[in-house]
């Protein structure tokens, strides 16, 4: 079965082709079914491989020689190991659910077939990303998912703003990708290969803090900041909410954005040997987590809140990576995939019910109308807030525990961030489901629970969000740390270097207590503010306090980038074109061309038409020629 691993990406690819070609021919039901079945088939295969795979060493499946130039050989090859298997399961599993959900959600959209073909294409690229046995194949997936993200964000491209958001996402990803690409060049130059199984053993032998490794890892991290929406390249992700909601769930919450974490986890050995990079990652991760959380507090668009929440959670994952807690970070990837996908799908259900209304100021009191959505979303909110025994508790707690061991200051900030998370998530819940309905009467008359195709995935994800944490219950809570032991072969090199988590049980209990307590207070605060006082965020036109303004305007990142990058570049473009190119270089070229013409105007006057002058010129010529000859001679 492992030999047939190439079938896993092939299914969605075939689905993509069928949906793409038949998008206007086949009926919608068929299209949706084919697309979903393709992903479900991949999921089944992934499950099969999951059960079959029991090797400690990764299995490499070479498909064909892709690029072979000189001593650089890049085969098109897949690598199966624990990490990629888990990623396969997440992608295909959640992918399947979202496909099913989408069959309901997108039912009325004209671009139904196109949507599913893109979605399948995305799954295909995502699978390539995690299956690639070398950085280049990974890069294919890496950029491929970026493309699909672009296509799906700009799905409703007739809206110019959406198209701009798509463009922005692609370009920001590209900035990171350049870092990735250069890192790959250095890897090839240093190790002579880009294949993981060649690179990592060699890297293992290098000293910690090696400059080349530091450079490689920093550049790789630059790559991840784009893809996983970290500072300073995170601004595309909130804008990416322009895409259909299932896309936000699949791509911009559960899978694509975690590619960065996957990549660092995959390259953990190199990172473990670069302490400087690790610190940078931790700091940037935490900063992202906090800034995004602060922004999320004041957002009024339900999807924007979730988007910033995603950025924030990704920040936590990077914080985990930064302190060497690869398993914990990856654990958070899994649980986050469950509850964030659920939250987005739930939000989608709400938006669906509200006739595409996304502003929470126009919602309220929906829990009666949308019971399933409400309950599942509530579970997910609790999970993300980190209340035990929901999944988010375990994963976040493990990250924070590792951070605590590493650096106490980071831990304090991290916990603060967790409190903020709880606050803004419950704020969202309260604003949406509690209180009284604030929308139009027309919207009110349309309110309805979503169809089964949409609610069933919600329920499944809700279950996973609740119980997902049990795959890696720490020993202190009597768990078996299954995930850690399962992934141990992948992180073996790093753990042997960095060591295991070595906190005493009592400390761990204390940490859990602090964070859970804080979270409960935060929720209570939110409850008082938004339920008891029924506070509704003010409209855009009213004045906010300075802090709220900064938060509401996303710390002015977009404006800042516009001011220091976009506008200068545009100005530079005009300057280069009009001044340097047209006037400068072309001016010189034209000037050189003009010179003879101007000279011509003068020269022709020599030809006066007067014989006397001609003869005079001849005589002068003879004199000069004679004089010159003899002078020279």
């Amino acid at each position, binding site marked *: 079965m492992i030999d047939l691993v190439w079938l896993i990406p092939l299914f969605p690819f075939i689905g993509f082709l069928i949906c793409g070609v038949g998008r206007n021919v086949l009926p919608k039901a068929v299209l949706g079914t084919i697309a979903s079945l393709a992903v479900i088939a991949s999921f089944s295969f992934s499950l099969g491989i999951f059960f079959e795979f029991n090797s400690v060493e990764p299995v490499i499946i070479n498909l*064909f*020689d*892709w*690029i*072979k*130039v*000189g*001593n*650089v050989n890049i085969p098109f090859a897949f690598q199966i190991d624990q990490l990629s298997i888990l990623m396969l399961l997440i992608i295909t599993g959640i992918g399947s659910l979202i496909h099913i959900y989408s069959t309901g959600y997108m039912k009325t959209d004209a671009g139904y077939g196109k949507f599913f073909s893109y979605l399948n294409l995305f799954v295909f690229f995502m699978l390539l990303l995690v299956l690639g046995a070398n950085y*280049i194949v990974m*890069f*294919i997936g*890496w*950029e*491929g998912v970026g*493309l699909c993200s*672009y296509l799906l964000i*700009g799905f409703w*491209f*007739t*809206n*110019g703003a959406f*198209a*701009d958001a*798509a*463009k922005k996402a*692609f*370009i920001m990803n*590209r*900035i990171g*990708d*350049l870092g990735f*690409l*250069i890192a790959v*060049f*250095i890897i*090839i*130059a240093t190790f002579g290969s880009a294949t993981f199984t060649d690179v990592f053993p060699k890297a293992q032998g290098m000293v910690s803090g090696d400059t080349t490794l530091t450079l490689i890892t920093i550049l790789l991290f630059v790559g991840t900041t784009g893809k996983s929406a970290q500072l300073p390249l995170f601004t595309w992700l909130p804008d990416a909410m322009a895409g259909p909601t299932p896309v936000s769930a699949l791509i911009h919450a559960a899978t694509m954005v975690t590619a960065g974490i996957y990549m660092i986890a995959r390259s953990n050995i190199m990172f473990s040997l670069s302490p400087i990079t690790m610190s940078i990652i931790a700091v940037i991760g935490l900063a992202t987590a906090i800034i995004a959380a602060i922004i999320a507090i004041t957002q009024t668009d339900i999807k924007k809140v979730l988007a910033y929440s995603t950025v924030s959670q990704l920040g936590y994952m990077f914080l985990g990576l930064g302190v060497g807690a690869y398993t914990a970070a990856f654990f958070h990837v899994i649980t986050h995939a469950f509850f964030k996908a659920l939250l987005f799908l739930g939000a989608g259900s709400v938006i669906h019910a509200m006739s595409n209304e996304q502003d929470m100021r126009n919602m309220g009191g929906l829990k009666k109308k949308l019971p399933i959505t409400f309950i599942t979303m509530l579970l997910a909110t609790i999970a993300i807030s980190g209340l035990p025994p929901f999944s988010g508790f375990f994963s976040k707690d493990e990250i924070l525990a590792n951070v605590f061991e590493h650096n106490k200051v980071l831990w304090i900030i991290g916990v603060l961030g967790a409190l903020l998370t709880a606050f803004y998530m419950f704020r969202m819940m309260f604003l949406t489901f509690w209180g009284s309905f604030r929308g139009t009467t027309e919207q009110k008359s349309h309110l309805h629970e979503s169809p089964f195709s949409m609610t069933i995935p919600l329920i499944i994800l809700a279950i996973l969000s609740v119980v997902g944490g049990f795959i890696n219950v720490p020993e202190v809570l009597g768990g078996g740390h299954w995930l850690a032991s399962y992934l141990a072969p992948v992180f073996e090199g790093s753990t042997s270097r960095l060591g295991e988590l070595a906190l005493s049980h009592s400390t761990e209990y204390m940490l859990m207590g602090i964070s859970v307590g804080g979270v409960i207070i935060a929720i209570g605060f939110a409850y008082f503010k938004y339920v008891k006082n029924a506070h509704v965020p003010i409209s855009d036109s009213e004045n906010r306090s300075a802090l709220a303004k900064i938060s509401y305007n996303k710390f002015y990142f977009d404006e800042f980038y516009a001011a220091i990058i976009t506008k200068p*570049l*545009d100005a*530079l*473009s*005009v300057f*280069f*074109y009009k001044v*340097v*190119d047209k006037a400068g*270089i*072309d001016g010189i*070229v034209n000037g050189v*061309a003009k010179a003879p013409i101007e000279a011509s105007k003068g020269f022709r006057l020599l030809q006066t038409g007067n014989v006397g002058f001609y003869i005079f010129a001849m005589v002068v010529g003879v004199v000069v020629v004679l004089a010159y000859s003899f002078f020279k001679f």
Partner: protein
Amino acid sequence: MNLLILLFFPLVGSIAVLLNKNYAKQTALISSIITLGFAVTMLCNFLPEAGKQFVVDLPWIPQLGISFKAGIDGISMLMVLLTTGLVPLIILSGFQRTFKNPSALFALVLFMQSGLLVVFTASDAFLFYVGWEASLIPIYFIAAIWGGADRIKVTMKFFIYTFAGSLFMLLGIIYLHLQTPGNTYDIEAFYALSLDSATQGWLFWCFFIAFAVKMPVFPFHTWQPNTYAESPTIGTMLLAAIMLKMGIYGVIRWLIPVVPIGFLQWKELALILCIIGIVYASIIAFKQKDIKRLIAYSSIAHVGLIAAGVFTWNVQGVQGAMIQMINHGINVLGLFFVADIIIDRLKTREIASMGGIAKIAPKLSIAFLIILLGAVALPLTNGFIGEFLLLLGVYKFNIWAAGIAGLTIIFAAVYLLRLYKDVMQGTLNDLTASFKDIKGSEVVLLSIVCALVIIIGVYPQPVLHISESAVTELIGQVNSKLAF
């Protein structure tokens, strides 16, 4: 003799087109497809490792040491395939257009093809030069007769500029000829020369200017955007897709191996110019208002990278350049064809007046997107293979150079996606509302282009294999000369 048929069949076709005025397009297409057939036959008999094959060596002007000597090695083979492969597409692109005096147009295209093939196969410097100029004349007429409003001035500038460049090359060629022991123009004799470094230094510039103008490399590029914009699209395609490759091919075959020490002296400067060109042209492309001019500047940027790859003179760089020449040919042809479809229907080149076309022309939008992705070097499209190898080559030269050159992958995305957004996305306006989707030959052409974009992107190895040993050998030869 096989090669002679390949080289001169287009001329036969050209005459056939002139005689068969009523079916000019069809005759031209058939002729070019037959030429492609010859090229493919040769490819089937081609052994990449066997060095120069299908050699023709006929006396031409014996008392000057000039012979008609041509042959095909891996590098030439790729260029021959590029030329013979793209010309049918270029002819096809004119199928739904009406031209005044079409037989003359297509005869010129075929005539030019012959010249290009001579350039890419010549082993004799004189022959090379003749082919070089012979391909310039037809394109001048194509651009100047069938071009846009401003064509006369623009094409004159183009012609004078390129002609000036090539005359300096002629100076270099004659000079080298006089240095060879047997007073010959044979490239092998040029390779065998070992001149002192000062001589090689100025000879480098003689050749470099000719090639740099053709490519064009910053700051010799100012003829290009206007010429591309004003030429009829057939001409633009010929210029961008095939003709500028003459410059790069020239660098690989006639510049670096002939004056290796001169190359060594000026390598850095050449590379810096190339890299400046990449960034500079990309930035200019950001705010271009004219669709063809935007693609033209993008072409400068892309070619800058190819040239930079060549000047690094390592296997990755040169091989990357080889495959990227093919890719750039395909992509730029596709882009210009898409632009032509849009311009033909809307009668304007102004990007600002377009928008929303994707809504009513889904086929065009898909094709455009695929070609565009090829141009921005997305993995699994052809562009990625080339740019990956090129940047790897540049990286091996210098990491900072690679970093700056690598900006192209960001910048290309910026301006091309902006173009796509402004043209295809957004809302329809009065002008674009009646846009008709592609049909007939347009579909065929764009399908072929898109298929090539993806096929080469997914499985480039066969293409790379053709030129690999020739490139390796050439690099080895130069490096051994530089070793002492």
